[in-house]
């Protein structure tokens, strides 16, 4: 469990990135911090592994204040995946995955063997092991980034807009892959994004932030979509523009799902049941929207 206790971060006297933020991130769940730029979401994420230290307040991991832990050691125990993969361009894929184990003193041979297994885990062919990151596609690089994040088998995985720079099709693939991995691995995932659809798809708990690190709403995707607390949230999730208000139209015998702006959101397939894991989130995703 990760707990933020009235955390404030000021970069300068006037620039408040995060203001009196409190939140419990339950273990083995995906918590998504979502907000536009300037909402302090990345700052919050980086405070967990002490890349940023709070001006006041505290962050605890399983009851231990991270401020009492040595930053480098702490970071080596937490998986970290960032946008554009953040891979080391001068190291082969296998060595990139083995980076943190090597830093922790795992023998080279063992670290490389483990890294090859991790490539399997994230769905990459072992034939890519000896390539350099620049020789991979964006999606492949991102998978390597995830493999590296998992390399020390951390309890916590921090993901900072990890799928932000890949095209929508690859992004959808990576999102499903993450959900599959999470079912297998049961990590405490903190995921930062500015994409509300991504947040609803992945998040067990979604935190919507507004500028200055203020919490607009916390809840499950269902709760937020059904009961947005205010106009900011409605507009952020797209409810105000009718994007989330769907109705059926019958065209030539097929039931089509259409939003109130008249945009096709999808086809009603026979036997669709509510209450699957991605229930309202997936419905909102539609598929035609982008």
């Amino acid at each position, binding site marked *: 469990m990760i707990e933020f206790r009235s955390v404030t971060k000021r970069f300068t006297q006037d620039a408040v990135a995060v203001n009196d933020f409190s939140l419990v991130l339950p273990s083995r769940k995906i918590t998504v911090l979502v907000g536009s730029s300037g909402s302090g979401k990345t700052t919050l994420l980086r405070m967990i592994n002490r890349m940023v230290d709070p001006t006041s307040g505290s962050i605890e991991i399983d009851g231990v204040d991270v401020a009492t832990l040595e930053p480098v050691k702490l*970071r080596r125990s937490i998986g970290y995946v960032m946008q554009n993969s953040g891979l080391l361009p001068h190291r082969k894929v296998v060595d990139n995955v083995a*980076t943190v184990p090597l830093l922790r003193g795992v023998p080279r041979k063992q670290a490389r063997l483990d890294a090859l297994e991790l490539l399997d885990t994230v769905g990459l062919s072992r034939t890519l092991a000896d390539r350099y990151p620049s020789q991979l596609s964006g999606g492949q690089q991102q998978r390597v980034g995830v493999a590296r994040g998992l390399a020390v088998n951390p309890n916590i995985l921090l993901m900072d807009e990890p799928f932000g720079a890949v095209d929508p099709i690859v992004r959808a693939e990576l999102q499903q892959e993450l959900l599959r991995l999470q079912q297998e691995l049961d990590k405490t995932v903190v995921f930062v994004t500015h994409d509300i659809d991504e947040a609803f798809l992945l998040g067990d708990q979604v935190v919507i932030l507004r500028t200055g690190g203020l919490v607009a709403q916390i809840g499950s995707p269902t709760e937020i979509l059904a009961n947005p607390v205010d106009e900011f949230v409605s507009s952020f999730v797209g409810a105000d523009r009718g994007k989330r208000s769907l109705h059926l139209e019958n065209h030539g015998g097929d039931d089509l799902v259409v939003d109130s702006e008249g945009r096709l959101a999808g086809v009603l397939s026979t036997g669709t049941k509510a209450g699957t894991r991605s229930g309202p989130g997936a419905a909102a995703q539609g598929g035609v929207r982008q």
Partner: protein
Amino acid sequence: MTWIWSNGDLIWDRTLDHLVLSVPPILLSFLLALPLGALANRYRASRGVILGSVGLLYAIPSLPLFIVLPVIVGTSARSPLNLIIALTLYGVALMVRVVADGLASVDRDVRQSAAGVGFSSWSEFWQVELPLAGPVLLAGLRVVAVSTVSLATVGAVIGVQSLGSLFTDGFQRGIQAEIIAGIVATVVLALVLDGVLVLLGRLLMPWTRKSSSRVLLPVVTPAAVTR
């Protein structure tokens, strides 16, 4: 031409002398520039001070330096050590800025993610920043190598034997072939050292070979070489 055939041994000896005079300054200037450049890159204040004063080094004219050095260092006036020290100073003057620029050129995202996964700042410097600055460092080192080889010829003027001795001797005795031999041998030596550096770079930085997307050009202006 007959002069060259009958003096092959002499040319070879002077080439070896020249090599012994040029290689240590190239290596030393790199080793000295590394911490200075890193420091210059680290803090805004140190950047101005270090780059400013190191730039002044290059403004010192070489002949007065050869006269002053023995007095400061305590070497004898004709010691090859004077030349090696002077060439090292010039090399440092070029190389410090290259090191600072090279380290600054390392992608910020890569540095941040390195810090994020748990590199200490020491291991990040050696394992991430330095290798990634490698192509820029290599470009700078090539300029230093070539300029050092050409500068080393001035040793002849202060009585330190080098390929430059072939020009001075050729002038005094009116042997044109000797002058030409000196010039050609100097150029060849510079090219050989440059080639060795390029080869070394390929061996040490295999990732730069495979990604053709990144083309790195030398950051030192050609004007610096003509000095």
